[in-house]
């Protein structure tokens, strides 16, 4: 019984607790307690993991627990973590923790809200710890579905439309994933013997190139939909714009990472040859996405749209890095996921708080907020600087690792893609500073805003927690990047083994 199961048990217990609650306040506090426990567990996990590694335990995955579930189908409840998933778990715990505080002001059906929020979180945790494709997929869908209710009930704007669109597109993605997973299962025992969903076992065997070529697009696109792969990203702007604060946070911060993680952990890891052969198609798409998202953000007026498009840009950068197939770039991809996760969560939290005070999200209706809400404004500036990749914040570490890694591919094609992608940092700077300039600086346009109050205590908690995360990674990235790049050992072996087969 590995203590990883806590990551599923704690949320479920929290949900039970919430359902037993009498009034709104209790609900909130139960949620807070549960998620704080979750955060603590995550931190403990990171520390224990690092200790294990330092103690020289170089097993591919640690804290393994393997219970047989469906014997004849050979489906197991098989969980374990490597450096990458540990990092992602840490991210999730942090963002969920902040999200609870950010959604403190929910008045309509708070019980249902927090239940679905934590259900979503448990799905994400389960996804990251599971090493069996079946449970992985189960948790994946479990994480996606509550989105519909969260956006549909507590959202704003054209929330029904956005919720439906988001859910259907993501489910379309998961349909492709399911096809790919069944395909993997069917091909999982070329030498006879029982078929298996076990990710580690499948990674050990060699799947025939033909079936790889058939399955790779399904898996990559399937996860890519959630990873905002151009042109399947179009759910993201509407979804984010309509979602309530905490949901945008979790969604952009954590859920979109499921896509990138899946692309890396399932598509590329299990189908390396196909990845090598077909990677270039998706690399082009990802590169387009990076630039496209940035320019898209440049034109928007609505804060959430701006951030949604910048998320598209950053997440495409993740896919871009994954498709570079070398250790540095992959490490960068994972760091970028974490960094963007925290950063964009911070953004959405702040946007939510600002919206809650000014009741508009159109930047040119606001202005000079620095005067009236210094705390939020400064936090927003920090988030902005982090997002345009300023040293000292996580974004810089991630982007530089990605670019240096990507540049190690000697051929012109990858070089050009890298340079194009790198040029996005300028555009990012432009739109971030544009927003900061219009929104926070200058004079207060609307006299009504003179009376706005600054952040409340719960706002401050969530903001500070996230800023701490950004700066921690930004100032001392070494432990993180080492942890991650250790975790990337196996996939690198497969990719390197795959390369000569093709050349």
């Amino acid at each position, binding site marked *: 019984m590995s203590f990883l199961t806590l990551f599923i048990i704690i949320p479920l217990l929290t949900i039970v607790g919430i359902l037993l609650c009498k009034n709104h306040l209790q609900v909130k506090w139960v949620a807070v307690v549960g998620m704080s426990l979750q955060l603590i567990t995550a931190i403990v996990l990171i520390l224990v993991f690092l200790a294990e590694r330092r103690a020289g335990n170089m097993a591919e995955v640690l804290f393994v627990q393997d219970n047989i579930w469906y014997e004849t189908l050979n489906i197991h409840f098989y969980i374990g973590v490597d450096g990458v998933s540990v990092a992602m778990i840490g991210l999730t715990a942090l963002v969920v923790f902040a999200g609870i505080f950010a959604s403190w002001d929910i008045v309509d059906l708070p019980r249902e809200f927090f239940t679905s929020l934590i259900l979503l979180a448990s799905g994400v945790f389960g996804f990251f710890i599971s090493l069996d494709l079946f449970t992985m997929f189960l948790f994946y869908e479990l994480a996606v579905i509550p989105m519909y209710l969260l956006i549909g009930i507590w959202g704003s704007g054209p929330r029904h439309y956005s919720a439906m669109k988001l859910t*259907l597109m993501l489910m379309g993605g998961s349909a492709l994933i399911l096809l790919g997973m069944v395909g993997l299962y069917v091909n999982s025992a070329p030498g006879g013997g029982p078929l298996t969903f076990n990710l580690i076992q499948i990674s050990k065997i060699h799947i025939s190139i033909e079936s790889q070529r058939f399955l790779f697009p399904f898996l990559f696109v399937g996860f890519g939909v959630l990873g905002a792969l151009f042109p399947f990203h179009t759910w993201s702007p509407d979804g984010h714009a309509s979602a309530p604060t905490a949901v945008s946070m979790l969604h952009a911060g954590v859920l979109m990472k499921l896509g990138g993680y899946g692309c890396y952990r399932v598509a590329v890891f299990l189908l390396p040859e196909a990845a090598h052969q077909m990677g270039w198609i998706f690399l082009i798409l990802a590169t387009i996405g990076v630039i496209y998202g940035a320019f898209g953000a*440049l034109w928007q007026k609505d804060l959430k749209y701006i951030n949604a498009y910048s998320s598209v840009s950053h997440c495409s950068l993740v896919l871009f890095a994954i498709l570079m197939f070398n250790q540095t770039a992959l490490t960068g991809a994972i760091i970028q996921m974490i960094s963007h996760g925290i950063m964009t969560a911070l953004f959405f939290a702040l946007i939510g708080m600002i919206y809650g005070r000014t009741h508009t999200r159109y930047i040119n209706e606001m202005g000079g907020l620095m005067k009236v809400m210094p705390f939020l404004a400064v936090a927003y500036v920090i988030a902005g600087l982090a997002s345009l990749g300023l040293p000292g914040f996580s974004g810089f570490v991630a982007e530089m690792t990605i670019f240096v890694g990507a540049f190690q591919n000697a051929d012109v094609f990858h070089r050009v893609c*890298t340079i194009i992608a790198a040029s996005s940092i300028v555009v990012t*700077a432009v739109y971030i500073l544009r927003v900061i300039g219009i929104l926070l*600086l*200058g004079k207060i346009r609307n006299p009504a805003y003179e009376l706005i109050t600054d952040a409340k205590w719960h706002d401050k908690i969530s903001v500070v927690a996230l800023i701490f995360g950004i700066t921690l990674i930004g100032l001392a990235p070494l432990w993180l990047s080492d942890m991650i790049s250790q975790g990337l050992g196996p996939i690198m072996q497969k990719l390197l083994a795959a390369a000569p087969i093709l050349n």
Partner: protein
Amino acid sequence: MIDFSFTALILLIPLFMFVVLGLFGNRFKPLVSGIAGTTGLFVMWVLSLITAYMYFFVLEKAVDGTFQKFLAVNMRWLTLTDKLHIDMGVLLDPISVMMLIVITTVSFMANLYSIGYMKGEKGYMRFFSFLSLFSFSMLGLVVATNIFQMYIFWELVGVSSYLLIGFYYTKDAAVAASKKAFIVTRFADLGFLIGILMLSYLTGTFDFITLTGPDSPAFTSGQGVWFLGLSTMTWSMIFIFMGGAGKSAMFPLHIWLPDAMEGPTPVSALIHAATMVVAGVYLVARLFPIYVSTPVALDVVMYVGAFSSIFAAIIACTQYDIKRVLAYSTMSQIGMMMFALGISGYGGHEGLGYMASMFHLFNHAFFKALLFLGAGAIIHSVHTNYMNEMGGLWKHLPITHITFLIACLAIAGIPPLSGFFSKDEILAAGLEKSTFLYLVMMIVSGLTAFYMFRLYFSIFWGKQTQYEHTPHEAPKTMTIPLLFLAVGALLTGLIPFSNFVTSDRLPFVAHLEIWVAIPAVLIALVGMVIATLFYRKENNLPEKVFLALGGFSKAAYHKFYIDELYLFITKKIIFNYISRPIAWFDRHIVDGTMNGISFVTNEISFRIRKFQSGQLQQYALVFVSGALFLALIFIYLWTN
């Protein structure tokens, strides 16, 4: 071997000040935070002076008589590949130590000055915490042990400049200027980044000592022709120079510098005159051996430098905002430094240009900071930036007047003030390279003298302006820095610079080139005389000349319309013809496709509803025909 690890403190003190003032600054009284920041910087200053002393005089030289180049502090920060890793540390060699002195001195002075200058401003402690942040980043930049650490602090410098320019964040002009400064330099930094990527890929290292060492991989690898007939290494060096040009406001990336004057004057003095803007020069100097190995790149540096120098000098003659005049003169002076680097060779007397450039950088820091602080004092007392609204201030502001005059003489290159010596070296080096560029530089120094004294006369003499409340001399905290820097401007020229800072760290004797010096001084004097005629007394000569030059002077007055060009490119092209179409495409094509799919599905489901007509017999018909249809297919399929 002395342990220099205490140099780390030079970085950590301002960082500490930044954090403390930034987080808890608003708990203190404003004055307290100002004094705290200044004391911090004072300690830092003293430390760097000690460092310089120990480095140049106590530390024994290397076996070949060169100043040692070594890592005082170094620690792993991030591992990228097995070869490439980013370290944080302190690299000590002549130029970094020289820069330490420059930066700490100027920023200490600027801080001291600000205590008086910023009195009563809103966000006093914010200002001081930003100043500390800037000092931290700038120092980190100069002591960088590897090119990536340099890049990191490069960005930090950029952002602290952004924060300080936009200090008056309620002034739209300030906000716009800060944004412009950041974005333009950011664009340049993209070039820097690409250059770093290429360089690091070619050489497999970031480390300066390896890169610039005698057997650097940069000399051998990447020499093959890559693009436009230039080798990869050349291109990477050109890209890196792009970054330097951005920070140092070289043409055509200079447009942010004049606007940056929207910031508080001490900031302009510290960042946009003395320290940050010379980062580009420092970068080229830092990588000088590689530049020497790629002559084309070095020529680019030379021509860009020369052109920017004269370009800025011309504009400076036509501006009325005193800070803008100073800004353009800064640009012009930095152009000279770049030019000096560009013409320089490596080693011994070949490296005269290098030495001259560093020497000029050193001197320039003092007198330009002095000029800006003086201008600050003037603005502080008359509350205007425009020289045509001033005049006859000499009796109101005696100290400012004297120090300002000294600075003007120094920058004009009048012996025995500092500017004379370094400019002389530059011109001497230029003469060895090519006569044409030498002449250009002569014109520049003439123009320099002209516009500086135009400034001087129209501020302190010229017409007798009536001020609503009589201007008064600045407080002590402001005049002391002025005096100190004036002394600096008087004396620094006498330092035998070639004994300390040379391209190969090997001291050599550079003696005054008398045949270069005399014409230089003469042309400077000519410039001064003309300025005197024009502006000593109020008269209409300037207008005459201005009109006589017609279109040219008009263009110069409008800074040759570079800003307008940029505005056109960004606002018109990028926003309207790239960003907007993309946004449209996303909404209507990509999104439209998704909605279209759902629409089509709905439509189909609506069309086929008549199969469910509710007619029993129609159901039966479908039923039977379905059966027969299957029968047909499969019997057919089966039989063949």
